[in-house]
């Protein structure tokens, strides 16, 4: 295998001449009432990657393809990625910067076109090489952010991540000169996958979108990950839409929802049920795109067939939700969403955003100061640059709520948390999993733990989305 020659972002590349764009594809689908569905999928075998893209392309009415990058490449350890490839050892994703561009062009040839955009998903706090590699292939859609791709996923200092993401965003924005409209999705709506209350998720997603906008990008999606309570989740998606309208002038934007990113139901029925709820949530909240989870999520990396099934199920559930809303007369176009005056998620997110923006005219510096002072503080995050003074819990109504706010400027919380135990954490982490498994898994099933005991250690692998 030949390593990519590119070591840093080069100038704009000629292949970006097409007027067809990621944002246009999503907007067209939304206008005709179709939810765009997208898998999380990446294989190190180029033939399997190509087969996977081809299969997902035809899985539903409106699909975006995904190249998920392996975790060696994500942390910048391309040497290990190349070594594994040379030893025929499968990786947990597509090593885009270690395979030759010739190979990657073959993977995409005749698969990616204006009716099937392909997005690169990675999770790197040092994204420059990945962004250069995807641009060299004529791709122009990816995801991430200076905070969301740093704090949950390692030890890269936040200041380095902000600088790295500034460079990556400016490079992507420079592709606009070729006639392309590069697209960047925030990952800020998914800090650690679960147990981060929606107000902070929405604030981080909106702040990262503003970071992209200030770097020159004009095609942006704002993410939000399904949490524990659907009413709260609808508030969150609508809050994000209002913030996007307020913060991102002259920009094509949409909301992308992630099907639940925490511990996923182990039963097939429970897994599909949660997926369908997320598709309905996307329709109700006004998200344009949904990134799905499969029935294999709780167990292993899904196969192509399992991804295809998830896309089909989610697309059908969204179509049904659209029909039901239309029949009930409750269907609204995104432009005529209900008022958000009584939206607690918006109020909390707006308070956090205003506090951050008031710290410094430069958003990168403002984010660094905000984390240093604990104005932004992600619960349970172990990163050295996160203050670590906040805690959350799931209340009696199933809402994700603060128990400790540390120094965040969001007003006092009513409940002081007791001592957090492993059991208490495990119950909170598996709240959604249990809710959707309970109908389908007998408590005596062989995979279940004895009552009163936490399940096996490795059951916690679903807590974050990165492999």
């Amino acid at each position: 295998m030949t390593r990519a020659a590119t070591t840093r972002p080069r100038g704009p590349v000629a292949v970006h001449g097409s007027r067809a764009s990621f944002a246009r594809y999503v907007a067209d689908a939304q206008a005709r009432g179709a939810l765009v569905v997208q898998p999380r999928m990446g294989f190190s075998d180029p033939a399997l990657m190509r087969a996977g893209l081809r299969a997902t392309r035809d899985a539903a009415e409106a699909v975006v393809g995904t190249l998920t990058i392996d975790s060696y490449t994500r942390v910048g350890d391309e040497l290990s990625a190349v070594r594994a490839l040379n030893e025929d050892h499968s990786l947990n994703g597509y090593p885009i910067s270690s395979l030759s561009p010739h190979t990657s062009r073959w993977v995409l040839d005749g698969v990616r076109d204006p009716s099937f955009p392909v997005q690169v998903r990675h999770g790197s706090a040092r994204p420059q090489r990945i962004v250069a590699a995807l641009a060299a292939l004529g791709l122009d859609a990816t995801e991430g952010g200076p905070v969301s791709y740093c704090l949950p996923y390692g030890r890269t200092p936040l200041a380095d991540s902000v600088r790295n993401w500034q460079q990556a965003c400016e490079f992507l924005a420079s592709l606009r000169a070729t006639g392309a409209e590069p697209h960047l999705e925030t990952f800020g709506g998914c800090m650690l996958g679960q147990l981060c209350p929606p107000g902070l998720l929405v604030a981080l997603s909106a702040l990262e979108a503003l970071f992209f906008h200030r770097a020159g990008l004009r095609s942006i999606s704002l993410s939000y990950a399904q949490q524990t309570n659907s009413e709260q989740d609808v508030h969150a998606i609508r809050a994000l839409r209002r913030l996007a309208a307020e913060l991102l002038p002259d920009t094509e934007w949409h909301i992308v929802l992630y099907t639940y990113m925490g511990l996923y139901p182990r039963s097939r029925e429970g897994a599909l049920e949660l997926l369908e709820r997320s598709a309905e949530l996307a329709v109700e909240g006004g998200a344009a795109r949904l990134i799905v989870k499969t029935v294999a999520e709780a167990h292993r990396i899904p196969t192509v067939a399992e991804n295809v099934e998830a896309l089909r199920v989610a697309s059908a559930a969204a179509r049904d939700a659209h029909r039901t809303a239309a029949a009930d007369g409750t269907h609204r176009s995104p432009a005529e969403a209900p008022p958000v005056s009584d939206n607690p998620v918006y109020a909390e997110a707006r308070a956090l955003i205003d506090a951050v923006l008031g710290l410094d005219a430069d958003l990168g510096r403002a984010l660094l100061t905000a984390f240093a002072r604990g104005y932004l503080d992600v619960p349970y995050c172990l990163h050295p640059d996160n203050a670590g003074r906040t805690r959350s819990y799931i209340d009696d109504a199933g809402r994700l709520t603060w128990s400790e706010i540390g120094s965040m400027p969001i007003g006092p919380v009513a409940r002081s948390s007791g001592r957090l135990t492993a059991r208490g954490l495990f119950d909170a982490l598996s709240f959604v999993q249990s809710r959707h498994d309970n109908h389908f898994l007998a408590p005596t099933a062989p995979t279940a733990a004895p009552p009163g005991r936490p399940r096996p250690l490795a059951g916690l692998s679903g807590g974050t989305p990165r492999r």
Partner: protein
Amino acid sequence: MKPAELATCDRTASLEVIVTGLASDAHTWNLVFIQLLLEGLGHEVVNLGPCVPEEEIVESCAKHQPDLLVISSVNGHGCRDAKPLIGALRARPDLDGLPVVIGGKLGISQDRQEEQARELMAAGFDAVFQDGVDLASFETFVGALPKEVTR
């Protein structure tokens, strides 16, 4: 639950344990959970967090001189990444006798679990807790460790 820098080194606790992820693994919840579990058993934990490079794990052990090192990995690269790490740990005279265990989802498929566990034990691990092993066996292992390792 504090980053390693803020943790104290109080030797009055039962055992001082370092909990860590591996270099390419970004998962956090497994590490938070194991920290709370060990603290609930009365032990003191320094949690290095996810994506810790090999040298940093070795240097942290040299600095804190823990009674136990617990490695948790769930991204499927664990078996591959843990072998050079255990080699580096076992090569350090100042860490002689340090109990080192690993657990989680260590490969990307479940077919080779037993073989991988054997390989890891042969490479120098004191115990391997593969996916599907109940917590009780981990707790039993920890409970059987001497309270103070003399080196």
